[in-house]
């Protein structure tokens, strides 16, 4: 048994924490207020090598372990979930489908810029009529000569409309019982990026609906084997679940630190509020949740690195960590009282932002479905 992070993990954590505190934290409130996606800061994250942590060295990555990526995501989420999800989606959903399943041609064409953080990619799975029920995908791609002709719509696609978005990988029906993944480069005629959504949280993260009308891309933009799209995105999502869990750990850590500091300093009835059990026990509960979530998430990451099955552990980690993060943000806001309801208080933004942690990359309900099936319970 060994629960220690190695020297490299610790050095990365220190680097990302310092970057997050000096470049992101002072601006995050304004970005949230203005729904502003800070492309220059995302580029700086790229220069630090954050998008290339796990990518192969051939494409400019560092070829390092997945735990490193989780640490970077956790540290960003500790100050701002919008930048954490930008990295998480940039790697898990933008880079990985091409990195894991794409042809050499697709890799050579797209990966160097994505891995360096000079470009971003999105993954278009969800549709207005197909969320958790991904099999209901209605977007169609029909082969016409040496081109796919795509028609359909996608919803809530992260990183799909930034100034540096180079492509979106989408799932599309390519036959009666067949879903495939296809790369659609930004700016392809017939590919429309709708105006950014107005959101409850993650406001500095870039999210759009996408529309495809007779959109033509080369047949070689097929990612991996035709008809394997379903398996590909399921595998993509397993990784993503651990990474979302890592975000939740960062949120929990933030709530814990902020609440403890405030409980020591804020006085009520002549004493620090932390001296009252009503507040002290909230802090104690946050400590328990943070520790438990961290162990679940990094164990799942470790299992993935060992090459063993980790679907169940990823779902457990994502479910527990995201729900704990939502509880902790609610309680941290309560610790701050009226101040917790103000936009300038970090836990207030974390509260709004955290809700989507139990929706994105598989809802809590889907996680429970995955876990119960993993227990061998019959499928309804």
């Amino acid at each position, binding site marked *: 048994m060994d629960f220690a992070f190695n020297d*490299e993990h610790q*050095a990365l954590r220190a*680097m990302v924490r*310092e970057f997050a505190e000096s470049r992101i934290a002072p601006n995050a409130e304004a970005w949230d207020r203005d729904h502003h996606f800070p492309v220059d800061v995302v580029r700086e994250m790229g220069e*630090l*090598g954050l998008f290339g*942590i796990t990518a192969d060295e051939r494409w400019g990555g*560092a070829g*390092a372990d997945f735990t490193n990526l989780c640490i970077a995501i956790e540290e960003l989420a500790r100050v701002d979930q919008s930048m954490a999800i930008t990295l998480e989606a940039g790697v898990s959903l933008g880079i990985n489908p091409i990195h894991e399943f794409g042809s050499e041609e697709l890799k050579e064409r797209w990966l160097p810029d994505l891995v360096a953080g000079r470009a971003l990619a999105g993954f278009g799975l969800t549709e207005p009529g197909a969320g958790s029920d991904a099999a209901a995908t209605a977007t169609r791609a029909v082969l016409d000569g040496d081109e796919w002709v795509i028609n359909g719509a996608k919803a809530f696609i992260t990183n799909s409309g930034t100034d540096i978005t180079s492509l979106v990988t989408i799932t599309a029906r390519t036959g009666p019982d067949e879903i495939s993944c296809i790369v659609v480069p930004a700016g392809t005629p017939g590919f429309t990026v709708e105006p950014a959504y107005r959101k409850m949280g993650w406001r500095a993260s870039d999210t759009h609906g996408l529309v495809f009308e007779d959109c033509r891309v080369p047949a070689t933009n097929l990612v991996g084997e035709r008809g394997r799209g379903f398996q590909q995105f399921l595998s993509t999502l397993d990784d993503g679940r651990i990474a979302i869990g890592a975000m939740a750990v960062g949120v929990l850590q933030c709530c814990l630190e902020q609440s403890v500091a405030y409980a020591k300093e804020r006085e009520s009835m002549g004493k620090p509020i932390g001296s009252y059990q009503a507040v002290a026990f909230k802090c104690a509960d946050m400590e328990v949740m943070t520790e438990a979530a961290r162990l679940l998430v990094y164990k799942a990451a470790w299992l993935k690195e060992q090459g063993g099955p980790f679907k169940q552990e990823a779902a457990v980690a994502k479910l527990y960590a995201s729900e704990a993060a939502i509880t902790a943000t609610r309680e941290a806001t309560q610790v701050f009282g009226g101040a917790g309801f103000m936009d300038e208080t970090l836990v207030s933004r974390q509260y709004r932002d955290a809700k989507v942690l139990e929706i994105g990359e598989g809802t809590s309900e889907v996680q429970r479905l995955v876990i119960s099936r993993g227990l061998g319970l019959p499928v309804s």
Partner: protein
Amino acid sequence: MNIAVCVKQIPDPATPYELDDENHWIIRPEDQVLDDTDRSGVEVALQLAEATEGTVTLYSMSPSGTLQGIRQALAMGADAAVLIDDPALKGADALTTARVLAAAMQQEGFDLVIAGTESTDGYSGIMPQMMSEILDVPCLSFARKVDAGDGSVTIERQTSDGFDVVEAPIPALITVTAGIEPRYPTFKGIMQAKSKPVTTLTSADLGITNTVHQVIRSVEPVAARTAGEIIEDDGEAYLRIIEVLEQAKVV
């Protein structure tokens, strides 16, 4: 250009320092961080090395511990490190430190030495000047900007009014202010830092035997701040305010 940079591992300034009851030295934890001032020194060295296709070697005299601080500087991009880790040097004074570091640099060779103006834990602020004397090279201090020329270096020397431009032939020694913004290490830099060469020497390896230890007789806590004076404005309060400011020699 072969650039030597003085770096120091110090206890994390965010945590309170603990002093040894007996000799009043700082108790150094295994995990020490790179002194912030030195990050500016490493940054300047890296910029000069990039401009001249040179190399950057770190020099540090301290208990190695986990090497966390040294790895930080290597992760920024320095090529190698030379550490003088010797229990006999514990409590060494500034002159001994200067002699040891200078001896190591003479042994390894250098064109330029860069140091921070002063360390954040010791604050003596005299070590670099002593080194320049021992190395017999010109000392350019308080650089806020450094440019390498052909066989020379030019700095902007920070003054209270602005800056002086100072030039010296190399080899030379430069002290840099904290005003130079250091780079973040990249993730690849962090990965590569593990495999960069770190040489460890003792004072005997450098032929230094007569080390001098300063003796700290006592350490007193800073006096608690006393309550300030409240000046009621009766229409003439400005007279008292001027008087206070004059006493404080700020006007």
